[in-house]
């Protein structure tokens, strides 16, 4: 590949600029090094994985709603995984595990960051491409390999990994422990190693591009909040994924070489195993040191995307730009010192638990700052309810309703009761599941014209939004009450327990709500695919936004801008500025061209500019008097 890359570069040098770029099918669509194409690859792979993970969730929802019923169709579809039309209990565990893994890592980490960081970082900071396009391409192909390996585990005899997406030992460390601990688990680990490699390559590239390749005038405080969010997300990934690797390496040694990092006093099928002296808690520490930052890796890009979209579609500057950035930084820093709140019931020293509790609850502060700023951005704006805007608002809604239960769960005293119940399931599906996927969908609707040069259908977008929004609440809200009643998560048939039988009707309700929301995604998929080919042609700046990506031509070119990269003169949120001719001023418009709307505040470090402004205002005043 590297020879190809060198050759490519040579071509670009010989011709004027980058526009006449001779690509073969292979270098343009498959092994592309262009960040826009890689973004599309990530998006389409991410959406495919999301659909698969959603179908898995429908399968186990059917089991939860109808634990005693036989569905011959299931046996036809799944074969030995659903004997006599009922899901095999161990396969149920595999479904839960793979649903979680795919959604958290493959959709909301790679699908979200991979798509939008790749698309927007070079376009919004004003760069021709990423710092290392080759590494970027490699990042996608590692991700693709990880996807293939993860899905291939459905085709092995014993089925995919079944120990939950957190793969706690001993289940994950003993190949003989259960069906899902066998080859499926091995494949899970291999897939994850590829995935982490992909994430690191991507993240390293994002950080380097943001710090080194901004265009002239684009200082850090002129970057859109999307870029801030992607940048900090990438930093989180770069610092936390290696820790997961360390944990997984030790796990592999335990699985395959017989070491005892995590294992001690194990008896399998009446046979005493030779493991001695290990500690499963050690794995939890290593896992959650990644795992907690991971949930912010998932939500922060969604936050950045929503901030941008809400500002554009409220035709108002984002409220509290600096506060938004500092709260993102605050979340980034805090996310590294809260992992213990996943481990309150591991016999942790109560004092240590108290420390983790305090750090956890402090995260409510930056989160609330963000929430109030979003609401204040909407306040008295000229709101345009585009589908993207609706999804961004939906993201805020889920973030609030899911975030509030986070405060409950962050309390050690409450968590000891609520741990591993459906309350937790409800909490994280709202705050990081639904909120992040809504952020991602908002981004898809908003930047679709930039990616494919065409518009998505608005009516289908509205249908998609309302069904998904209502559906997600109907699915996850009742789970809070189940959790408060003590219903444990990951159980195959908890309604077999007399005390929980009454939840069967609720389970049926949730399943039908889930099926409805799943059907709503058909509207999205149809809209997405048909709009790529037949959508209305997009104009250069369909949303009348300020950021740099809308100054590029609709037709994609290698290098993004046909001539010189534009310089940046102002922050990205000059919407509805009093005195301006239009309700938006592009970042590339110099202050000298907008004298009527300039404010003294615009010239903080620029005394010459301030003087010019004062002179201009006094002449204006003089003219007024003459009149």
């Amino acid at each position, binding site marked *: 590949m590297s020879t190809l890359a060198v050759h490519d570069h040579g071509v670009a*040098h010989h011709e*004027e600029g980058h526009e006449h770029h001779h690509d073969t099918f292979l270098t343009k669509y498959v092994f592309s090094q262009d960040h826009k194409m890689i973004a599309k690859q990530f998006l389409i792979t991410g959406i495919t994985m999301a659909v698969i993970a959603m179908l898995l969730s429908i399968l186990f929802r059917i089991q939860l709603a109808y634990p005693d019923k036989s569905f011959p169709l299931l046996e036809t579809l799944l074969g030995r995984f659903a004997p006599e039309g009922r899901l095999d209990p161990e396969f149920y565990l595999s479904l839960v595990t793979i649903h979680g893994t795919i959604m958290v890592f493959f959709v909301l980490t790679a699908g979200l960051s991979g798509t939008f960081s790749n698309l927007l970082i070079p376009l919004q900071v004003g760069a*021709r491409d990423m*710092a*290392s396009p080759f*590494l970027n391409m490699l990042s996608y192909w590692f991700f693709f390999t990880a996807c293939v390996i993860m899905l291939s585990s459905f085709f092995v005899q014993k089925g995919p990994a079944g120990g939950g997406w957190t793969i706690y030992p001993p289940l994950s460390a003993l190949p003989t422990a259960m069906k899902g601990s066998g080859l499926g688990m091995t494949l899970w680990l291999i897939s994850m190693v590829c995935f982490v490699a992909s994430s*690191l390559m991507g*993240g*390293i*590239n994002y*950080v*380097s*591009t943001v*710090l*080194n*390749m901004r265009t002239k005038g684009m200082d850090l405080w002129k970057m859109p909040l999307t870029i801030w969010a992607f940048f900090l997300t990438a930093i989180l990934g*770069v*610092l*936390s*994924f*290696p*820790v997961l*690797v*360390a*944990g997984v*390496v*030790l796990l592999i*040694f335990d699985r395959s*070489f*017989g*070491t*005892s*990092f995590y294992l001690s006093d194990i008896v399998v099928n009446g046979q005493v195993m030779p493991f*001695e*002296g*290990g*500690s499963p*808690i*050690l794995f939890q*520490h*290593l896992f959650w*040191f990644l795992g907690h930052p991971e949930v912010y890796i998932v939500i922060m890009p969604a936050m950045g995307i929503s901030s941008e979209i809400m500002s554009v579609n409220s035709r108002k500057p984002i409220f509290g730009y600096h506060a938004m950035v500092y709260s993102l930084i605050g979340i980034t820093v805090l996310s590294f010192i809260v992992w213990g709140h996943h481990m309150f019931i591991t016999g942790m020293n109560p004092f240590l638990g108290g420390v983790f509790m305090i750090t956890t609850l402090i995260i409510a502060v930056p989160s609330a700052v963000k929430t109030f700023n979003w609401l204040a951005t909407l306040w008295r704006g000229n709101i345009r309810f585009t589908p993207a805007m609706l999804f961004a608002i939906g993201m805020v809604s889920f973030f609030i309703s899911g975030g509030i239960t986070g405060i409950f769960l962050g309390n050690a005293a409450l968590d000891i009761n609520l741990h591993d119940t459906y309350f937790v399931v409800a909490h994280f599906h709202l705050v990081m599941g639904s909120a992040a996927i809504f952020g991602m969908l908002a981004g898809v609707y908003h930047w679709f014209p930039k990616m494919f040069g065409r518009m998505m259908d608005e009516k289908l977008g509205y249908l998609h939004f309302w069904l998904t929004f209502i559906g997600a609440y109907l699915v996850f809200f009742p789970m809070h009450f189940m959790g408060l009643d003590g219903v444990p998560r990951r159980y195959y048939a908890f309604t077999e327990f007399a005390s929980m039988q009454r939840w069967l009707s609720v389970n049926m309700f949730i399943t039908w709500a889930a099926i409805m929301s799943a059907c709503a995604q058909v509207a999205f998929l149809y809209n997405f695919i048909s709009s790529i080919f037949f959508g209305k042609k997009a104009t250069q700046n369909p949303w009348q936004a300020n950021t740099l990506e809308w100054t590029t031509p609709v037709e994609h070119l290698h290098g993004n801008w046909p001539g*010189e990269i534009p310089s940046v003169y102002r922050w990205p949120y000059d919407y509805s500025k009093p005195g301006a001719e239009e309700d938006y001023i592009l970042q590339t418009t110099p202050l000298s061209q907008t004298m009527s709307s300039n404010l003294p505040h615009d010239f903080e470090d620029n005394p010459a500019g301030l003087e010019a402004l004062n002179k201009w205002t006094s002449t204006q005043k003089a003219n007024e008097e003459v009149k």
Partner: protein
Amino acid sequence: MMAQIQQQEDKVNLGAKKFVMWIFIFTSFMLFAAFTSGFIVYVGGSGKGLGIALPESFRFSTIVLVISSITLFFASKAAKQLDFDKQQRLLWVTIGLGIAFLVLQLYGWYTLAYKMKIYLVDPNATRSFVYVITLAHLLHVIGGLIWLASSLSGSIKRIPQVKNLYRMEMTAIFWHFLDIIWIYLYVFLLLNQ
């Protein structure tokens, strides 16, 4: 004019790529930090210590690695002074020392396993940690050797000086990091003897 802009952009881009290496070093550092903190958590939880004297060859390998850092430093200096023969000679020496480091580490494992009867599989996982940590570092060293080889081949092929220096710098950043992280790991293990 156009060519000048192009050149400038390439230069900027090389800077960004160098930065990529720095960030990669952070990720590597986090990996080793995770191993050593895992070690500490394990010791704290089980109350076990390493309880062995580390093989002597680790001490020699440390010295070898430090010397290789010094030779690499002079190789970079020679490259900057356009003295390519000296650069290549010193790179050969550095590669030799790197391989010597590899051999000494392997000999250290041999001593551990065959002389001291301390195996990877041990109910005291701190001893397994010695193997895992040194293995992880060894894999990094192999990566470093590949970088050294690419610098050397670049210099032999007389690639443009900008690229030559760029490769040298990337190699140097990574190799010095390997040196420093090994000293950290070795001291960490020594303190936990």
